[in-house]
């Protein structure tokens, strides 16, 4: 019997669908890589020293802001200008300090408040579940999972970054307004969407991912959607134009 048009379409559909290649390994959430953007011992040492100096200079012990303590005091940066510097420099100070806090080098990252706690950073794993194409941009679906320990309280609005496979920042976001914390128990999953556009730099080292810098400098780098992923936001401007990156608050 002569195949109908429907049969032909279905045959074609099946033939094309069968050509899909399964990724070699099944997906699993991978432990979160953490570290400061510069990822160097010198950078870490400088940050620690800067925090210590700032604490002494402001006349209060730095131990007040230890990770894991209750986030009872909302951060209020002493500077109104936030730059897009990639490396955190702890120049802001707790709001209860004198109003003469240094503000010549404001940065988007540091605040005195611990933004992940009481669980440790090792309790959290972030991964990109998919990249979505959108109008001139790409949208990363990201999940944050409490993989062990808990409970965790996580600031819902960290500063997003687009990073390459080595964690090098390609697009730096600006710090969003402070939002409420999200409370997560062990096994809970929070999700967000990160929209990235206008990457007009050189060809990056794939796969790309997104990182989240919390107010106290803690940084979580999400696992890429796959090891061979080559998603990159399209450049809609001239070369060298800074890209854009924005995120929704973490939500369960």
């Amino acid at each position, binding site marked *: 019997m002569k195949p109908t048009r*429907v049969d032909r379409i279905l045959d*074609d559909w*099946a033939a094309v*669908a069968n*050509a899909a290649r399964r990724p070699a390994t099944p*997906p699993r*959430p991978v432990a979160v890589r953490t570290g400061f953007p510069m990822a160097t011992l010198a950078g870490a040492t400088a940050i620690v020293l800067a925090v210590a100096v700032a604490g002494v200079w402001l006349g209060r012990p730095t131990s007040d802001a230890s990770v894991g303590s209750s986030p009872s005091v909302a951060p209020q940066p002493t500077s109104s200008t936030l730059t897009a510097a990639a490396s955190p420099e702890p120049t802001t100070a707790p709001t209860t300090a004198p109003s003469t806090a240094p503000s010549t080098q404001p940065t988007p990252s540091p605040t005195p408040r611990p933004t992940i706690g009481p669980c440790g950073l090792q309790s959290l794993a972030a991964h990109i579940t998919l990249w*979505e194409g*959108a109008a001139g941009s790409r*949208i990363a679906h990201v999940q944050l999972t409490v993989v062990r320990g808990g409970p965790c309280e996580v600031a819902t609005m960290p500063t997003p970054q687009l990073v390459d496979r080595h964690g090098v920042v390609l697009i730096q976001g600006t710090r969003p307004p402070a939002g409420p914390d999200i409370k997560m128990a062990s096994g809970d999953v929070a999700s967000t969407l990160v929209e990235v556009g206008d990457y007009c730099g050189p060809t990056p080292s794939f796969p790309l991912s997104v990182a989240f810098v919390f107010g106290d400098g803690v940084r979580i780098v999400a696992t890429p959607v796959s090891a061979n992923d080559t998603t990159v936001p399209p450049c809609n401007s001239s070369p060298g134009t800074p890209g854009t990156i924005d995120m929704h608050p973490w939500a369960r």
Partner: protein
Amino acid sequence: MAIAESTEIAYERAYEVHWTDVFRFALAWTNDWTAAQDLAQDAYLRLWNHRARVDWTRPVLPWLLVTTRRLATDRFRTLSRRLLSPTHAETVDADPALRSRWLDVSAAMGQLSTLERTALVMTALEGATYEEAGQILGTTAGALRAAVSRARTKLEAAS
């Protein structure tokens, strides 16, 4: 430890055995190559996250397909306002012939609603009964029969 290892083996086996089924289901649902690949991976991530609660003695494919459908529904509800047309032209690997073929067939299948397209593929290609497909798609066998009939009519009528 033994349970964890056996669960891991079961998960990997489910990936090897059913990934193509999940991808084809996602492709039928979305008519978008990239989205289907992403959905299949996301469905397996969900399976991994739920592996401790999954009854591995029972077939896992229905769970994967229902999860894929729910993920697709949630995803498009969230992003529908920001999405442009599907990106299949740039993603069907690097085979020009395959890409061309996919463009033709996806254009034809794009005339159908999501339910019509998925119901047609599941029953005509995957060999599912209307009852089985109805359980996956969250609707009745009668509704699927009607959807498949509409799908065939639309495809036959298209020039």
